[in-house]
């Protein structure tokens, strides 16, 4: 007998989906963050070839809908002899997607550290790597935190696209329940609320960080 009214089991199923949304977001954040960090470093590299190659990577990924990346990975790889699970496909696609956007966000943050800071470190005989890791990156991290937390909201919402490759996260869990209950307004309202509950605190946090790190931008504006 199929339940025709929203019950505790449905809610439990939704919460389980929400948990997978969180897991998938975490994978995307950590994997995409690591790869994105590499992308950011390549984008500001001293080598023109590295800059161009990483720039092309960013352009290609940003110019492709996440949905299409998911299809490519999930449906495109098996004919080539590479079978991927829905979780693996969703994770890989999100990591690609996140790395391109995070890479660009962080490139901007690295470049917004005032040039005289590079120069001062250079004049203290520090190598390029030392300048980057001891002087520029610590300052870039402060600038980067608010937009990064803000982008995390995008990641969480975009994990809902993983439903198209059959991965049961929050949105897919809602679809499944709706297919049996035919209560789209109620079910999707609950889903919207659950997404909101995950994203809103992050948005607030991002806003707060932005206010607090405002000082990073109001220093050292004396020009020669």
């Amino acid at each position, binding site marked *: 007998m199929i339940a025709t009214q929203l019950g505790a089991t449905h809610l439990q199923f939704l919460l389980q989906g929400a948990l997978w949304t969180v897991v998938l977001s975490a994978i995307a954040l950590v994997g995409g963050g690591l790869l994105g960090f590499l992308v950011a470093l390549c984008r500001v590299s001293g080598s023109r070839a590295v800059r161009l190659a990483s720039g092309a990577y960013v352009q290609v990924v940003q110019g492709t809908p996440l949905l299409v990346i998911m299809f490519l990975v999930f449906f495109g790889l098996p004919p080539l002899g590479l079978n991927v699970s829905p979780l693996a496909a969703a994770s890989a696609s999100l990591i690609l997607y996140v790395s391109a956007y995070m890479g660009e966000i962080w490139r901007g943050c690295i470049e917004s550290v005032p040039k*005289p*800071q590079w*120069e*001062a*470190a*250079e*004049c*203290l*005989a*520090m*190598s390029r790597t*030392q300048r980057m890791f*001891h*002087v520029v990156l*610590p*300052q870039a991290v*402060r600038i980067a935190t608010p937009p990064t937390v803000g982008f995390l909201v995008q990641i969480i919402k975009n994990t809902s696209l993983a439903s198209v490759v059959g991965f049961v996260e929050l949105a897919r869990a809602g679809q499944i329940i709706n297919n049996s209950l035919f209560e789209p307004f109620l079910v999707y309202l609950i889903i919207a609320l659950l997404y909101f509950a995950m994203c809103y605190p992050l948005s607030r946090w991002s806003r707060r960080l932005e206010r607090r790190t405002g*000082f*990073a931008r109001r*220093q*050292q504006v*004396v*020009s*020669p």
Partner: protein
Amino acid sequence: MSQPLPSSAAPVVSLRDVHKSFGSLKVLDGVSFEVPRGEVMAIIGRSGSGKSTALRCIDRLETIESGEIIVCGHRVSDPKLPLRALRLDVGIVFQSYNLFPHLTIEENICLAPVTVKGKRRAEARETARRVLGQVGLGDKLDSYPEQLSGGQQQRAAIARSLAMEPQVMLFDEVTSALDPELTGEVLRVIEQLAAGGMTMVMVTHEMGFARRVADRIVFMHQGKVWETGPAGILDAPETAELRQFVGSGL
């Protein structure tokens, strides 16, 4: 042009017929001067006269088109020069201090000695204490740059350079961003360094200070060394341009 000097008395900084342009604008048009060890040279002139550019060329923050620059035995005009070796010998202080805002004053000073010279932390801290004492900021080790006044920040920046034990110090309009009352405390520190025998080249707008501290004055005009000599040239300029510059209320 002076006689070639024996190598033991070779000048610390030497520019010979240096040319440089920014696009079609000629900023250095055959600049030559020498700074012997232990001497203080002040470069003066209007904005746009090329004085800051000349100073920045000494530390290879700008590259030149022709001519020769030799600093502490390093051929700066050679494009293949290892910059690290040059910068170990040259300290530079900027108008905008450029302290690292995420580090305390002590960390600002210890960073390069530890990472570049491989000094031990304890030893670097000892040095930081000493140089901060020298600039009168012995009690500011744990402060962050933004907690200090402009004059204090500039003195901390001088201390940071001193901690690397450079052969020559360059000062690029280091008091131009400061209130008159804060200017004095920075100039006093530079004056002490001069008295201690440090070789220095400074671009400055402080005529009184240049007259008092500099062994040699270089007046730049239109990218050229227009007039040069001991501080006395400020009282008896030979060229109309320097006379006008000195007389323009400075």
